[in-house]
């Protein structure tokens, strides 16, 4: 009788020893998920870095601060949820599945400067970098309550990209005491062209809603 109990208990012991070791924390997982409506993957803005760089980030700290700006977007722009760095986020849809993503991202400090950021946008479109002189020739300036916004219009389709969702960036940068503001519209080239005037008009309406904390 005790022999059978010995077997039973040794079996249970093996189970007890096996259970803690059977969870593989390093397992690589592969899964398929629906695409996000907005082109979340297309805009690794320079320093769209969460939290204040150089300081510990609280796990309980707000991930997405409340929008601290106001503006008058056109009615056909669909408001999207704000994310950690997006003070404003819209999606505009065109024909044949064309979309363009519009965002306003804010950062503390100069955030790399105009030329570095324009070259980064160009690289996102698979285009070579330009010089400061070339930037001066291609940029236009728009007056807004936040200051004078440097606006560029960049075109190019990166390798493997979907032309319905990519191909052109119209973007603006303005720096001031409150930090740096990045206005950006990226998406289908024809749709971006059709929305360009509204985008620039919107830039002219964006203002701080109160004391700003980038």
């Amino acid at each position, binding site marked *: 009788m005790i022999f059978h109990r010995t077997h039973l208990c040794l079996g249970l012991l093996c189970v007890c020893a096996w259970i803690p070791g059977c969870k593989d924390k*390093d397992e690589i997982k592969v899964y398929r*998920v629906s695409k996000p409506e907005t082109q979340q993957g297309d805009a*690794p803005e320079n320093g*769209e870095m969460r*939290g204040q760089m150089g300081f510990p980030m609280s796990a*309980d700290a*707000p*991930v*997405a601060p409340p929008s601290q700006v106001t503006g008058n977007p056109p009615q056909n722009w669909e408001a999207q949820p704000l994310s950690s760095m997006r003070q404003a986020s819209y999606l505009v849809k065109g024909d044949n599945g064309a979309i363009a993503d519009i965002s306003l991202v804010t950062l503390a400090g100069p955030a790399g400067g105009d030329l570095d950021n324009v070259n980064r946008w160009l690289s*996102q479109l698979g285009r070579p970098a330009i010089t400061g002189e070339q930037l001066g020739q291609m940029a236009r300036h728009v007056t807004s309550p936040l200051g004078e916004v440097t606006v560029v219009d960049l075109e190019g389709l990166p390798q493997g990209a979907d032309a319905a969702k990519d191909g052109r960036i119209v973007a603006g940068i303005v720096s001031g005491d409150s930090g740096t503001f990045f206005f950006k519209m990226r998406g289908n080239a024809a749709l971006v062209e059709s929305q360009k005037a509204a985008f620039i008009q919107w830039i002219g309406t964006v203002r701080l809603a109160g004391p700003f904390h980038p």
Partner: protein
Amino acid sequence: MDRHGAVGGTISSVTAMLHRIFDVFSSLKLTIVCLSLTIVLVFAGTLAQVDSGIHEVQQRYFQSLFVWWPSASGGIPVFPGGHLLGAVLLANLIAAHARRFRWTWKKFGIHLTHAGLIILLAGGLFTDLFSVESSMRLAPGETKNYSEDSRVMELVVIDGSDSELDQVTAIPASRLGKGGTIGHASLPFRIVVRKFYRNARVQPLGQAGPEALPASTEGVGSRVAVFEVPRATAPNERDLPGAVIGIEPISGGAPSPGTWLVSDQLGAPQTFSCAGKTWRLEMRPARYYKPYSLTLRKFAHERYAGTEIPKNFASHAVLTDPERNENRDVLISMNNPLRYRGETFFQSGFEKNDTATILQVVHNPGFLAPYVACVVVGAGLLFQFGCHFVGFLHRRGTSP
């Protein structure tokens, strides 16, 4: 005949060895040793929280088979961890009970009590191993079908070439921490870990000092420097891991997409091209996708009159589950969690100015174990003491 004798001798020696193992595992001495080691482990773990923080200590001391002393060769086990002690105690309890088990109604209460303790220990171990805690942050109007664990990071490589679905290959940050080369059948390239930072800070090169070097050759990393900083120990802080990785195409002759910095601090994916596809690369909190989604309609936050002290906060949300044809309003508030598909959504917090709600999402397949254990132990004790009490009354009634 000699061969039969040798086989018989081997069987008897194996049986004797099993008996010895059984003796060890059913002994009360082992119980005492395990409980003593548990006391030492709890004491050491409590002290270690001063330097390491509660989450690190939980993993190193209690959610492990051994406590490892770090060394150049990777680590030396210096003490049994919580999982090992719990498992041995569980085996000890089962073995001791099996050895001494004699079925009589007189001892039914004791058997029941022990069974309850076994359920409690096994449930605790099961919960520790298989429960998942994460959080879901929702701004009004926002819909999510996943929750995130901000203390567990993962590197995701996303193939967005399909028009409907993204294929996500998620590599735990802990795997990056082991270094070396990582390959997977879903990827036409290998990921070579050049450098891993348990807790890193990223700074633009212009602010990082004259000797700072770009973290990587491509992407945001080419314009920033990255520094290792001490591990986060405060309860409200967390490590922000980062890594510099190289992308090496498997097919020979293909151009290398270079090295990339991946960090949660970059905030958005970076893209590169390889094997004719555009890939997105991002270090982010581990995600747990669900077959249903929650949309936040409204977040209500009541305060005590004249103060900023929260009185009640509640999330009015819409639960949508296409598989089960569910589309209904749900209310999640303090002490009123939503339980759905084995997961429990607690109202955990909110963000400044009530701009978003934070729900704690708990998946615990062993959540019933403590309740069942308490009922079984309670029934066992009630039966045992009840028998004694009845016997006492009986003796008292029959005594002269």
